[in-house]
Structure formats: C-alpha cells, structure tokens
C-alpha cells in the first residue's frame, strides 16, 4: 500500500489539469462559440487522442493484434462497451495462439 513520491506527483498533476478542464467551462460559458472547422477540430480531439494512444499496440505489434483490432472495430458500433472489450480480448488470445 505504498505511494511513491514521483507517482503521487504525476497523479496530482494529472488531477490538477483535469480539474482545470472541468471548471474551465464556467469561465468561458457564453464566450466560446466554435463553428465550422474550428468546432470539427475540437470535436475530433477525443477520437484523435484515443486512437493515437492505441495505434502502436494495434498497428505496430504483430498481425494478431492488428486483426483483433479490426474485429473489435467491426463490433464496436453494435455492442455495449464491455461486450466489445470481451470480443477484442478473446480475438487476440485466439489469434496469438494461431500465430
């Protein structure tokens, strides 16, 4: 149950920056009116960041991971989140066994 100082510092910094994003909306409410391309760019932030984080493990690890990622993407729009994760994990275990 130990807490490393460096880990605690990282967690505190992550918490602080997250809190600023949560409270920041109040201070710009009514002043921020994004439209057109600027709005599309802002809306693209979550998927762009999420994909950037997983791309190495999905695309640059091996063919089982890449195929499992494609299978997962195919079911992601149809299944709830936990079922999507289950499909991805089972796919990668089966494909790694074949590799």
């Amino acid at each position, binding site marked *: 149950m130990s807490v490393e100082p460096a880990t605690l510092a990282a967690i505190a910094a992550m918490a602080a*920056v*997250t809190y600023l994003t949560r409270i920041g909306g109040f201070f710009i409410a009514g002043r921020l009116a994004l439209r057109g391309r600027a709005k599309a760019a802002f809306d*693209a932030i979550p998927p762009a960041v999420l*994909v950037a*984080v997983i791309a*190495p493990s999905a695309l640059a690890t091996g063919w089982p991971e890449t195929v499992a990622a494609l299978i997962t993407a195919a079911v992601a729009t149809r299944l709830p989140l936990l079922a999507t994760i289950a499909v991805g994990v089972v796919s990668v275990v089966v494909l790694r066994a074949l590799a």
Partner: protein
Amino acid sequence: MESGGKLDGARAEMRAGAGDIWPVMVAAFPIGLLFGALCTGKGLSVAEAGLMSLLVFAGGAQFAAVELWTWPVPVAALVFSTALINARHVLMGASLASKLARFPLWARLIGFHFLTDEAWALAERRAMWRPVTPSYWFPLALLLPVGWVGGTVLGAWLGSFMGDPQRFGADFAFTALFIGLVAGFWNGRITAVTVAASGAASALTYLAAGPPWHVAAGAAAGIAAAYVAAPAEEGA
C-alpha cells in the same frame, strides 16, 4: 407545508439523479476492475491506483496514462496526454453552466470535479425539460465514483495475484476499450478521416521515434485532418 413541499421536491430530485446514474455506476465497476489490474501490471500499488481513480476520475485519460506509464515516471507526457484527452470537458462544462439552477459557487467548484461524459450526458438530457439542481447533480455525481474507485481498488488488489496480464490477453483490453470509446464519439466521415490520420501518424512516429511522441503526433494529425475535412464556415 411550504418547506415540506420544498423538501419533497429536493428528495424527488435526488431520487431522479440516483435513478439515472445507477446503471452507469454498475457498468463502471468491471471497467474499474480492468483499470486496477492494468495498474498493477505496470507496477503501481493498490493505493496509487485508487488515488488516481479518485483524484483524476477520468477513465479515458487514466487508461491512456497507464498505457504510457514507465519508470521513471514520465510526468510531462502523462500531463500532456491527460490535458488533451480531457480538453472536451471545457466545452461540456460551458454548455452545462447555463442550465444549472440554485448552484452556489462552492457547489460548482466541488460538483464539477465529478463531470464525466456520462453524468454530463444525463444532466444535459434532464436540462431539456427542467433546470439541473444540486439535489439532482450530487447523487448523480457521487454514485459514479463508488463503482469506478471501488472497481479500481479491487482490480488492483486482484491483479497482484494474477501475474502477467498478457497471458489472458488483458494487455489488449484497453486497446479494445479505446476502440469502443471511439465508436461512441463516431460522427461520420470526419471521424473516419480523424481516425485514419491519427492512427497512421501515431504508428509511424512510434516506429521512428518511440514513446511518448506518438501521442502528440497522432493527436495533432487527427485534429488537423478533421479541420481540413470539415466544410469551411460561410462568411467567417
């Protein structure tokens, strides 16, 4: 009777908030288990994993952080990734701010630590027919961490008995989770362009320069691609 009526109103608001959030709380528990187990796999302690879920309380950013986690801790990369992933909160908060009723400053400052995609979506839905009060918001806000932090702590504890998560394919679980989350943000052609640009830029940067630069490169490419792919605004 007047104060009694007001109290009944507050109680009904609380019941509505709790009733709206409980399925989300239940769903957050197993995802928290997974997060906790991944933390243990990266060498974080049970207390550290629980603290992160309690203080950061943002699933997507936390899964990204645990994926980026190395020793020594890359604090700047973690903060950068967290800020990028959570930047959407600014727009969510700005939109919700005008729909709050009877929220003193302290309730805003404390209450919005608990702003999540799910709580925000539920509050916005309610705001379509009545203002969002603290009596509605706080049960909504406070129940979700029970599932998320509870799941994290139990998962981190169980994870320490599990050994190498790769044996169960658990190392791929966050990849699958993120694919599922991206599907939730899906908005047609622009999202497809964003995903393609981000994925290509990130994978190539990872191979050429290594972590953590792939996150910044992929995010910048995806955002730029969305800007280019969107139609230009008229008369702006």
